[in-house]
């Protein structure tokens, strides 16, 4: 098997796996209890909080653990809205609204966010919030001036992803956050960093954004755990209500093993980030060059004269003319190669992805989309075989469909 779908999920790192083991067996204490057994759990959670915080230059108490990236994204948007609408005195915004702007406030986000953001934004729209979905350029970039222009008096949140899960575009999030804050300090800036956390260097992110979502299983940690960075002093309503875990902001008994694994994975990836980026970039460029030898290939996402530095190191997204991505994926699977046609969350659907539409791909082109996302665990042999198999599949499909 050749695994080239690391944007969907990653192989668990040995260190992360080992870090989890004690808490799946003997160390089963509830981190909220008072005795020694519980203190070990509590310590593990705190340690992980520190490990996860280091990656973005945050303080440990600014990291709140969740069940994953999707929960973090839901929480950031809904929590920001509810914090605003309650205004601490129980009255709703609409009661206080003046005549300008929308009584329920305004959010700025982008048309290429993950569904965890888009569906949540749509939900908020259904509650009366207005939402602006910024259109990216043809390589998937959103720029700071676009965001600034979209700001209205009632804007309370900007949410722009750090890196796109389908086409790998790395957005200038810090620049956007600084620009927004220079205009209006009270607007919260959130970034969905699920695809970028542990994949690219961003140890200064906490200095710029107010809220940041990340997920453990995208960087070699276990599934079912994620985090939301909430800058100290930011007002955010709780999303999961109940006990006093996570400083009373996110209820539910801590997933100690998962959190310990997440922390260990974050630490490993932070320590080896440069080598990892270098290796993935090397493999990606090798595979991309071979894929581009196939005629009729369009690269999705940033590529300026062969410079791919503004995309995620492991990401390749292409549209191949004359084939259907869905069919090619099945044929790749029959050859033991794991890839994706877009994001894992929409696979199985032949509808062109919202991301490819937003960067201007025609429906016909978008149907032939394929995504290969590499990790540092891949090898040259794997990459070469994948390219050879793909080339053969494309020829077969084109011959059949008389392309």
């Amino acid at each position, binding site marked *: 098997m050749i695994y080239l779908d690391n944007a969907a999920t990653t192989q668990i790192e040995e260190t992360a796996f080992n870090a989890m083991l004690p808490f799946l067996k003997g160390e089963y204490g509830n981190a909220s209890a008072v005795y020694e057994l519980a203190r070990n759990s509590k310590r593990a959670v705190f340690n992980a909080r520190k490990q996860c915080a280091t990656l973005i230059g945050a303080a440990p108490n600014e990291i709140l653990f969740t069940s994953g990236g999707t929960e973090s994204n839901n929480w950031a948007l809904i929590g920001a809205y509810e914090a605003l609408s309650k205004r601490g005195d129980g009255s709703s915004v609409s009661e206080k609204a003046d005549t300008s702007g929308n009584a329920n406030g305004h959010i700025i986000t982008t048309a290429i966010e993950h569904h965890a953001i888009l569906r949540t934004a749509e939900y908020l729209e259904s509650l009366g919030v207005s939402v602006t979905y910024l259109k990216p350029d043809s390589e998937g970039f959103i720029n700071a001036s676009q965001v600034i222009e979209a700001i209205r008096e009632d804007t309370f949140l900007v949410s722009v992803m750090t890196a796109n899960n389908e086409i790998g575009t790395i957005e200038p999030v810090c620049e956007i956050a600084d620009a927004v804050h220079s205009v209006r300090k009270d607007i919260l800036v959130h970034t969905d960093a699920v695809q970028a956390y542990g994949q690219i260097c961003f140890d200064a992110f906490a200095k710029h954004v107010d809220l940041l979502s990340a997920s453990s299983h995208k960087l070699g940690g276990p599934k079912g755990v994620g985090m939301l960075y909430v800058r100290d002093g930011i007002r955010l309503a709780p999303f999961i209500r109940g006990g006093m875990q996570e400083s009373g902001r996110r209820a539910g008994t801590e997933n100690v093993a998962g959190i310990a694994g997440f922390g260990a994975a974050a630490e490993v990836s932070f320590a080896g980030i440069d080598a990892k980026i270098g290796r993935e970039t090397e493999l990606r460029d090798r595979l991309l060059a071979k894929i581009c030898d196939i005629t009729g290939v369009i690269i999705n996402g940033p590529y300026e004269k062969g410079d791919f530095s503004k995309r995620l190191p492991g990401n390749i997204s292409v549209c191949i003319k004359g084939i259907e991505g869905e*069919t090619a994926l099945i*044929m790749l699977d029959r050859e033991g190669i794991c890839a994706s046609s877009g994001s894992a969350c929409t696979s199985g659907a032949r509808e062109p992805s919202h991301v490819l539409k937003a960067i201007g791909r025609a429906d016909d082109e978008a149907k032939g989309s394929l995504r290969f996302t590499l990790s540092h665990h891949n090898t040259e042999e794997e990459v070469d075989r994948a390219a050879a198999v793909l080339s053969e599949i494309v020829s077969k499909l084109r011959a059949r469909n008389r392309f």
Partner: protein
Amino acid sequence: MVSYICMSRIGNLCGNKEMKKTVVVGMSGGVDSSVCAYLLKEQGYDVIGVTMQIWRPENACDVSYNGGCCGLSAVDDARRVADVIGIPYYVMDFREEFQKYVIDNFTSQYVKGRTPNPCIECNRHVKWEALLQKARDIGADYLATGHYARITKLENGRYTISASKTAAKDQTYALYALTQDQLSHTLLPIGEYEKTDVRKIAEEAGLPVAHKKDSQEICFVPDGDYASFIEKEDGVVVPGPGDFVTPDGTFIAKHKGITHYTVGQRRGLGVAAGERIYVTNIDPATDRVTLGADEDLFTSVVIADDVCWMGIEGIAPDEKVRVKAKIRYNHGGETGVLESAGEGKVKVSFDKPVRAAAPGQALVYYDETGTYIYGGGTIVQ
């Protein structure tokens, strides 16, 4: 279990890798298509299970695990069956084709006062065009389904659909529109079995759907309320209320709109009459629905267009062929004479009048014993 396997027609492919043919089995999550996949695997084929995704996103609160042949539970069931059998399984997206060829056609026919059979359109355009094409794309030699029907090569060299072993579950009717090329790339192993055999095989093989109920209604209208389904479709101008009239044109009462009625319908008319009355005609031009007595529903001649030929290549302008023909899915069939009606149409003059031939349904004609399909078309009158 072994005894059933030996009964099958194609049983000598096992162990011979060179000969191993690949077949895509369309899996609905039901017992028939599950056993179909199981039998083909046992016969030595390289089997790939596929469920066609044809439903559209619903309101998240409404998503339920209700029946329907291709809903969410269908995918779960089919996937579990594929696991038990040990075959790769994929969900393929055919929502676009299903919307275009099945749903849009269904609504437009109803709006025209006709009574379409969506299973025929689905078989013709979605399963045996889009799915077969996909199957061939991924390197498969055949498409197989769990229909109770068989494929036979006749002496004239043509492939045809023939009745399954079990007359009670005959599903040949909805397959009349398949082409010779499609038939030559199709396997229908279930046609060799009785329904009770199929359940027994499923049970013995440990397939988790052995006791699942058969689906009945049209899969995309599980509650059977076609009129409300049509009203909810985008871009459909639903005909408004019109008149119920007697066969001589006398006004009886107002009706809800022609999409609420079908020829032969007795219930739900909302008209009180001394004797039993039925819908005998629907006129989309005037929105009039004629109500009449049972005997008004009988006709001796049925004409069809959009004709497909299967067991025979066609008929000469002055040729007459003795046939047995069916005018709806559950019709037992009636003998008569098939001849050309000009302009690509055919007509069947029945020996005994048939009841409630509804425009939009298929006229499917078989050899006189009702065993082999000769061809079929869409009833126009």
